């Protein structure tokens, strides 16, 4: 499945929820299931301080593919992290750096990636893309 198909799959999953609370219940379930970051890697340099919630992001590149793990102190933030990781993990650095994550808008969660929400998610996405960009520059050297 390519990255576009992964985004489309999530959009399709969310079409069955016509109520905001159901949608959030699903996100919360995803948050509870998220494979979190190795506790020894929850260090300050991996911390993204938001005004509302905090996010830790660990980036690895294995066999030319991006492998992100992340955690947050807020469960809804964790659920959205789960969706982002599902889309971005195992993709090449080039793909991660250039992909427009339109599914967030399409499922109505854009408010969580707005600069005013300050939950650390926007900074996390920016850091994921920056890490991918660095990795792609390294691989072309």
């Amino acid at each position: 499945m390519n990255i576009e198909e992964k985004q489309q799959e999530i959009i399709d999953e969310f079409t069955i929820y016509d109520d905001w609370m159901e949608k959030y219940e699903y996100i919360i379930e995803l948050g509870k299931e998220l494979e979190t970051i190795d506790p020894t890697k929850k260090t300050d340099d991996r911390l993204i301080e938001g005004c509302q919630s905090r996010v830790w992001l660990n980036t690895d590149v294995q066999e030319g593919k991006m492998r992100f793990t992340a955690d947050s102190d807020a469960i809804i933030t964790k659920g959205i992290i789960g969706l982002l990781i599902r889309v971005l993990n195992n993709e090449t650095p080039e793909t991660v750096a250039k992909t427009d994550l339109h599914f967030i808008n399409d499922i109505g969660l854009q408010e969580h990636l707005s600069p005013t929400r300050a939950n650390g998610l926007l900074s996390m996405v920016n850091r994921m893309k920056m890490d991918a960009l660095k990795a792609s520059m390294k691989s072309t050297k």
Partner: protein
Amino acid sequence: MADSITKPFNVREIREQFPALRQTIYGKNLIYFDNGATSQKPQVVIDAINRYYSKDNANIHRGVHYMSQKATGEFEEARKTIQVYLNAKKSEEIIFTKGTTDSINLVAFSFGELLSSGDEILISAMEHHSNIVPWQMLCERKNLKLRVAPINSKGELIIDEFDKLLNNKTKLVSIIHISNTLGTINPVKDLIKKAHSVGAKVLIDGAQSIQHLKIDVRDLDCDFYTFSSHKVFGPTGIGVLYGKEAVLDSMPPYQGGGDMISKVTFERTTYNELPHKFEAGTPHIAGGICLGEAIRFLSSQNLNAIQKHEKYLADYAQDMLDTFEGVRIIGEAKEKTSVVSFIVNKIHPFDIGTLLDKQGVAVRTGHHCTQPLMDFFKIPGTVRASFAFYNTKEEIETFIAAVEKSISILK
């Protein structure tokens, strides 16, 4: 005034005057419980904004023409309305600012100029960042010492500790009247008396008090009192610094520019009289006029009945929340206004706030610009519901059900 005291309290009638309350969000009736952040505006204030820009818009204090004189008259009339409402001695003691933060920065800069190395400023542990950071900046600039009076676990100022910190080096006590996070009402009248006994001046941060309590600056005897228009049913971008005339006269100007001068030459400039000395540039004219309208609106209300109603709402909400397992109320002062801050065991405030929003309830989550206070309680933040006189018991019931539902999903 007699009318307003005897006027019966009818929340339905009051709500009708606030158009923003009549809307649905996410298909639910809006329940607005973020009044501590900003209040909604009554129709009379909205009409005044419209009227000003439709008919009266002109620059003030310098035009010979009809519209300028009319706008000047209305702006100065608003100043008088505020003077009378606060019971200030003179309208010159009412300085228009951008809001509470701006007012405090003005005092920190200008009053701060009168202070010297080793002098002390005393604040409390429950201050908003806007009543901490300007003093830290001043302390750095002038080599002063910032002292912080501690609070107890209920969120009340420890008076004995406050007394111990007061000394003849204390030049200014700057204290929040009502805590935006906890709702605690500080005994400011007593604190002012104590501060004056060591020769210190006192600033009262009234951002959360003017909309709930009757403020009489002469009875309080405070040297400064600050508030923001938008928290008291007026527009954003305007606020007030009240200062005693003698204290304001002793202070140098804050910002330079038009309107604040008496005569300018390249060699020397002399400054204008109060209040203009502190109002450089074109002020927020519409804001000032409409704040006057908001204060007139407030003074036409029955404040005693409002206080009773708000207390009833807050007590009811707090009692209901207290019955939930794992809920901890943050801020249980004996003297408290209509704010209920709480956390739920093992659930982040952001998650509760997000789910309440989707159920139509607007609350505030986070540290409420009081990070040191969050550190004191060892929590990342709270969920804060802050009520105004247009809120109802039915809204509290819906809110409580929404909290219950949120907890059950998040657990």
